[in-house]
């Protein structure tokens, strides 16, 4: 692979490529040192990382991610707020306590994301109008339906944040905040799953998640066993079952996949 040929090619479609690369991390100096101490096979790695840094993110992309996350947090906050207000829906005191805590976190996430967007000179999106009854008419009268949706929202939230982490690679502060929200969503997910009698983790493509057919999109791809260049992660060490291998890794969702899921409630 000829790095300079590649950059020349890129220059044909992006005349500013040299500026982008050079202003970032003195890339050519770095590439020189990479060449000195690294096997040739590793160069694509380094190169990928260089381009990721140069092209992967702009402040607009970070703002897009934050507004994307804000929409999900609006949805969750709205859902739990309404659920807690629905009479006779959440009656058990332990369940109420858990849902109240989750609602409080989602509300805090909304506030934090809005202020973060503003601090980056962006404009937070307004809260959309959600229609939880659109496809689930008994969402606020039937406790089990409510919990099923809660599980779907939390597991979707975990996957959605995970899918955007790489788009925040260049903004350490925002990335870290996103990760700190991401793990809280995972804690919520585990608890809500157990409130429904499920295990806290996702085996296969939702095999142990007890959701109706229409909600399968929430778990699409969770049965992946190819991780980081290991073609079959079941085969590492002394070997692992499909259930262990799939539950041990949560999978990301793309923005489009998340939008598809959210559209069921808009």
């Amino acid at each position, binding site marked *: 692979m000829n790095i300079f040929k590649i950059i020349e090619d890129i220059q044909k479609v992006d005349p500013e490529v040299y500026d982008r690369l050079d202003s970032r991390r003195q890339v050519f100096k770095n590439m020189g040192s990479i060449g000195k101490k690294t096997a040739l096979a590793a160069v694509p790695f*380094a190169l990928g990382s260089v381009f990721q840094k140069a092209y992967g993110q702009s402040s607009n992309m970070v703002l897009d991610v934050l507004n994307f996350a804000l929409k999900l947090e609006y949805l969750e906050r709205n859902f739990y707020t309404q659920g807690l207000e629905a009479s006779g829906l959440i009656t058990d005191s332990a369940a109420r306590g858990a849902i109240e805590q989750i609602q409080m976190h989602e509300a805090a996430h909304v506030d934090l994301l809005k202020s973060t967007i503003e601090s980056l000179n962006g404009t937070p999106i307004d809260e959309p109008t959600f229609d939880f009854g659109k496809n689930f008419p008994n969402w606020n009268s039937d406790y089990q339906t409510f919990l099923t949706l809660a599980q779907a929202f939390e597991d979707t939230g975990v996957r959605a944040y995970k899918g955007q*982490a790489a788009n925040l690679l260049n903004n350490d502060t925002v990335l870290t905040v996103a990760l700190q929200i991401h793990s809280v969503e995972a804690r919520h997910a585990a608890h809500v799953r157990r409130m429904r009698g499920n295990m806290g983790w996702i085996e296969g493509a939702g095999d142990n998640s007890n959701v109706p057919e229409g909600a399968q999109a929430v778990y699409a791809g969770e049965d992946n066993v190819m991780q980081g260049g*290991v073609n079959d992660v079941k085969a590492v060490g002394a070997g692992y079952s499909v259930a262990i291998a799939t539950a041990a890794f949560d999978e990301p969702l793309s923005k489009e996949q998340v939008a598809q899921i959210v559209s069921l409630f808009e």
Partner: protein
Amino acid sequence: MKKLHDKPADQVKSESGSFNALMQRRAFFRYAGATAAATTMILGFSSCDDDNEEMMPVEPDTVDLGSGDTGILNYAYALEQLEAAFYATVVDRSLSMFSQSEQQIMQDLKGHEGIHRDFLKAALGSAAIPDLEVDFSSIDFEDKSNILATASTFEDLGVAAYNGAGQYLENAGFLTLAGKIVSVEARHAAVIRDLISNGTFSDSANNMGLDPAMMPADVLKAAAPFIKTKISANNLPK
């Protein structure tokens, strides 16, 4: 490069999504693809993305995690070794003191941490640190509440460690990979907390709804009483 074909198209797309959104230039896709292909390679190198030319010296008998992304992955590997060894011991020695549903949880935790450890070792290849020697002498494996308290410490520490280390990764593929693992650690942490006291699953979060993020030096200090092998994080990205 051949590995690209081993990868499902949707995965390649999601890993190069950042390019797609910004560039919208067809000619560039080939290079975005190259990134995706590169991230599928098993690590067979040492510290290629390291900005510092000079490596800090390491004392003899000390395991150096290394630098750059390799160092961060070795750091994760060290913590997964600790967790895996712990749950293997719990399942070996303490299973009978748990209820049937709790036993299933302990078996799953042993499996998840075991596969995290073995996966990271495989991914790191020759860059992997050696097996660490653990020290569980302070844990009473005859005492359920002590076991759960220790599990909670390890799981919350693991979550905080991954949350704090993400910003040091340079490679998008590795960042996503760390994300795949950390949310499972958070699920564990929540379940263990609930086993100790139901409803405390996310009490780790502050009033902004954020889980802790800890720096490697602090994490390793907290883990040190349970690891006999001396570990140096001196060359990790800062």
